[in-house]
């Protein structure tokens, strides 16, 4: 009960702040939104890599699916959404909830397709599979004209003769069309509402007895299985829920940036999310949130040397491993006072 009250008041707080968010300088506002999106991405990966002890390396792939699918729907089906729900605040809200869910569910389905076969295998197949998966998704998008291919995607042209396309084909230059750009639905409220949702989702799940299954899988699969925990099931649940939220984050990103490009979801983006989780301390909610904030703001200060970002991440990780292997905020496991007297 206390928990639900806290949840609702957090949402109300986000709503109230949103009323004043118009006064924020656009540059800071953008950073704020990216912070929120990165918190969602890092927390959802934390569920897989931190709490459940798997190693997924393709989170940007799920983000891409969420972004591209929801943006495709909001542009190609714009007439449908406008006709059905109108463009008032109420209609936009309904449209956006549907679009967010489309992004999340599409990513979750991709999560099932990738996760079920690779999580059943013992060992570190997941890192390789997810890495490959994210690259494949990016390459596919790069060659899909319907979403602008490597040019990126800004919206849909709907021609008078019923044709739809992301770019104007050469032979159609004389046909009248309407251009539906990506609607700017994402704002402070939606972004941070999902930050609140994912925080409560993870903390509720991990504090429940059921949620002990995830932590048991991370610590010792054989012991977990022997106590009746279906380890594959728990891995898949963590993986698919992580993918779902990455899809939501993608949908939020697309409807804020209003332009998406396959390169937004490249290997570097996946690594960035992994670094947030490792830096924050695998399985530490607060740590990962703080790391997401820091790693969103940091590149802004380092704009001049942005091509060295990979190197900076690598250095950060190495320093981290040497000085604080448990992450900035991870728990240091106390060494057991094992009095082995055998």
């Amino acid at each position: 009960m206390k928990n639900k009250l806290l949840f609702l008041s957090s949402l109300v707080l986000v709503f109230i702040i949103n009323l004043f968010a118009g006064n924020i300088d656009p540059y800071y506002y953008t950073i704020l939104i990216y912070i929120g999106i990165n918190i969602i991405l890092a927390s959802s990966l934390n569920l897989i890599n931190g709490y459940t002890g798997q190693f997924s390396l393709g989170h940007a792939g799920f983000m891409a699916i969420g972004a591209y699918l929801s943006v495709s729907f909001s542009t190609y089906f714009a007439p449908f959404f406008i006709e059905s729900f109108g463009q008032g605040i109420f209609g936009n809200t309904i449209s956006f909830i549907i679009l967010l869910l489309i992004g999340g569910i599409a990513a979750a389905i991709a999560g099932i397709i990738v996760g079920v076969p690779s999580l059943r295998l013992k060992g570190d197949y997941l890192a390789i599979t997810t890495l490959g998966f994210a690259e494949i998704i990016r390459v596919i998008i790069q060659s899909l004209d319907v979403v602008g291919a490597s040019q990126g995607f800004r919206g849909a042209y709907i021609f008078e003769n019923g044709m739809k396309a992301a770019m104007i084909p050469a032979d159609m230059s004389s046909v009248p069309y309407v251009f539906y750009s990506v609607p700017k639905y994402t704002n402070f409220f939606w972004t941070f509402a999902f930050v609140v949702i994912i925080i409560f989702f993870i903390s509720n799940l991990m504090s429940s007895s059921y949620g002990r299954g995830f932590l048991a899988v991370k610590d010792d699969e054989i012991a977990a299985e022997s106590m009746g925990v279906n380890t594959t099931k728990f891995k898949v649940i963590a993986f698919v829920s992580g993918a779902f939220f990455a899809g939501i984050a993608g949908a939020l990103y697309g409807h804020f940036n209003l332009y998406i490009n396959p390169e937004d979801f490249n290997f570097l983006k996946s690594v960035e999310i992994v670094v947030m989780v490792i830096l924050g301390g695998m399985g530490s909610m607060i740590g990962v949130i703080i790391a997401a904030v820091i790693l969103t703001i940091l590149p802004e200060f380092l704009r001049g040397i942005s091509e060295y970002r990979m190197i900076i991440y690598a250095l950060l990780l190495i320093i981290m491993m040497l000085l604080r292997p448990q992450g900035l905020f991870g728990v240091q496991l106390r060494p057991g006072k094992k009095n082995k007297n055998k």
Partner: protein
Amino acid sequence: MKFGGLTCVDSLNTHVGKDELVGMIGPNGAGKTTVFNIITGVYNPSSGDVLFKEKSVVPLKPYEVAETGISRTFQNIRLFQSLSVRDNIRVSFVKSINAGFFISTLQIGNYLNEENEIEDKIDELLEIFGLIDVRDEYAVSLPYGEQRKVEIVRALATSPELLLLDEPAAGMNPTEKTELMNLIKMVKDKFKISILLIEHDMKVVMGVCERIIVLDYGKKIAEGNPENIKNDPKVIEAYLGESHH
């Protein structure tokens, strides 16, 4: 059971009756732990079958074996290192809990009642084993003897009908060993379960076990009540043989 060309457990034929406390003894490397791993589905036997309540458990995965009512402890302690004593035991309720993924995240319906019930059951078990005061400590931070007890409690918390204990008294002194054996017997009577218990030291099991199985080089060399086992020439030889190593 064969590993490569090595036969570790060879045509073992035995049983554990309802509410029975059976001891399994044998020298190092006799194959005792391997028998547990076969029963619990960690290993698949190269030939033969394991029946539990008249059904084969060989095709089952380890978690499915646990669901049928077989639970175990590990010789090389396998506690969950990032979890407290209480949370280690909470893992055992995952398989029987009504609240699934959605109820646990939304914390609706009967969620709180069920969590409280689980809490009470855990406390009851911890009380029996004298672990109630350390329930919030990290399980792996406890002394070995207590870690073994946490393992027993964790196994018991799955509500098994057959409990497999792999050297539960290892590393304890003789008094502690005897105490633990009496505790195990008490638990068996209280919860009406069958227990198969591995022990290295013949003397320890003599007092509490109704029947003893002796393994040597993967073969059963004797089986019977403690009195007969103690005087069995083959058993004496196996154990004398061991002391020469």
